[in-house]
């Protein structure tokens, strides 16, 4: 899947809150504070449709909280946002999902005592068999159940979980649970998939296939917003990057250039106030965290100079 060209995504100069040509989510003035602490304070942000957008930022930047707000799992102090042009403020979480915005959780939520296939079937949208009285009459729901089971089996095969079909989800490894959570979310044919750290805890062998699945979502016309710390991953699959720090959107840009934005460097440096910045090794650590070639290059030069001075 080729990357979408940046100029096809944005409708203005690159800056935090830049308008998009075809936004699927438009949020305005969204704030959420816990006690006196403001975890999210997003003035304006647009998520481009049918593209893969990475949401990055240091720990505690408010990424998960922003996810929770958009998906109805948390209520903002203020703010409005639309999804597919529809107001979505105050819509409860289950209705958000039915509108086509589904999410996964940073801490994976496999339903441990349900089998893998039951986990999958639970992801399919509302139907007759889920109503109390209709559920008592199998002839009402059996046909739909069978076709959904077929669909679930296809997805399981694609995510290489078909051998685990009958096992309790609780018996899967951490990485397999991430895969299951994602496959389960796809059972509802969502329009937008929001993944909170989908790679965390996934072993490197699985990472590549997970990336492939995310690219496939875009190919199938879906929109992806994902939180990720590994900049290699972001570079590889993201069309667009949004950077959060201390609750605000501090930068947006293409994955190749955004990490060189001074605001981003400051955001990450700010988050590492406990690291000794006078120490070159400390700076290098930050550079590693940011995966910024520019800053890495600068620091490496500095190390070389220091080494030369020492001689």
């Amino acid at each position, binding site marked *: 899947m080729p990357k979408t060209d940046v100029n096809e995504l944005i409708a203005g100069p690159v800056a935090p809150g830049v308008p998009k040509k075809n936004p699927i989510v438009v949020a305005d003035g969204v704030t959420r504070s816990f006690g006196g602490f403001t975890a999210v304070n997003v003035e304006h942000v647009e998520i481009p449709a049918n593209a893969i957008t990475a949401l990055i930022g240091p720990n505690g930047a408010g990424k998960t909280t922003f996810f929770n707000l958009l998906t109805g*799992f948390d209520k903002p102090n203020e703010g409005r946002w639309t999804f597919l042009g529809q107001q979505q403020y105050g819509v409860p979480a*289950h209705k958000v*999902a039915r509108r086509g915005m589904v999410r996964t959780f940073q801490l994976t*939520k496999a339903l*441990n005592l*349900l089998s893998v296939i039951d986990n999958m079937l639970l992801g399919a949208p509302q139907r007759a068999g889920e109503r109390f009285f209709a559920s*008592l009459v199998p002839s009402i729901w059996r046909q739909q*159940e069978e076709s959904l089971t077929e669909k679930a089996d296809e997805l399981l095969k694609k995510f290489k979980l078909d051998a685990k079909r009958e096992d309790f989800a*609780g018996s899967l490894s951490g990485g397999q649970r991430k895969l299951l959570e994602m496959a389960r979310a796809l059972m509802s044919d969502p329009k937008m998939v929001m993944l909170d750290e989908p790679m965390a805890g996934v072993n490197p062998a699985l990472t590549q296939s997970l990336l492939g699945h995310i690219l496939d979502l875009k190919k199938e016309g879906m929109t992806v917003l994902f939180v990720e710390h590994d900049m290699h991953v972001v570079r590889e699959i993201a069309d667009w990057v949004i950077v959060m720090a201390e609750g605000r959107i501090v930068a947006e840009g293409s994955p190749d250039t955004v990490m060189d934005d001074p605001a981003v460097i400051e955001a990450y440096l700010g988050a590492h106030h406990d690291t000794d910045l006078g120490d070159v090794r400390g700076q290098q650590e930050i550079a590693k965290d940011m995966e910024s070639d520019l800053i890495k290059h600068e620091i490496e030069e500095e190390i070389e100079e220091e080494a030369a001075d020492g001689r």
Partner: protein
Amino acid sequence: MDFNFIPLAFGEAISPTTAAYALATIGLVVHFGFTGLVNFGQAGFMAIGGYAFVVTSLQFHWPLPFAILATIVCSVIFAFLLGLPTLRLRADYLSIVTIAAAEIVRLSVKTPELTGLTGGATGLNGGAEDFQALNPFPNGQYLGPLHMTASDLWAAICGWALVLLACLLVWALMRSPWGRIVKGIREDEDAVRALGKNVFSYKMQALVLGGVLGGLAGALFILPRSLQPDNYGTQLTFFLYTIMLLGGATTIFGPLLGAAIFWVVLSLSDGLLSLAVTNHILPITSTQQGPIRFIIVGLALMLLVIFRPQGILGKKAEVFFRA
């Protein structure tokens, strides 16, 4: 020595009281075992059901089908009263509210102002008259050494039929997509919410279903006895929990087995203890004997939870993979 108590103790396994306990426990299994609702007030549902049944048939002279309908309707209302304020909150709120509500019911029906209606602290006699009027069995003793009376036999037959019907209902629900959702809620309600299911509505449906089973159990419970408020104390709820854990909290037939074992063990230990007391084998008085049998039941429950936490009919893996 008189060993007559032994067949009588085993007869407890099929008594109408055991059927009532089994039915109430099936309700608890729907709440706790399948949906993960920690209801500590199942005794309250039984009280509501028992009082609705007896008051409408005895005081209002409603015919039997209407008294049964009243039992169901009152249980539904009680479930809504408990569920509406709590089911959106964290899980522990429901347990606190249910345990308090059950006590409120028990103490309210005892208030002197309501004596005309509820019989106050002494309760009401004869709530089963309409039901026994339908008894096809002539007076006499039945089932050989069990010496069951005709009215007990009639209550047992109808009671166990109701229990089997409840088993069938719960089984049909739990194998369906509806059951899959409530089991998902038990595991993680946010995950289920994220998949587009109205979690609150399903929790309410489960609370109502288990509550109605509890209410019907309350009506069944008074068939062989009078209606007395203090039968519905908190300890009744904990007996039901004992039965549920004994049989297996996520099994359909566990409550039947659990209730039967509970009552057989209780009556056996009672019989053995009184044998030991009257023959001066144990240095205790007959008043101490009552509580001691409950200590035995408690001990048995502890051993069970340690060595077989999934219950007798439960699957080992279910405990292993519990998060």
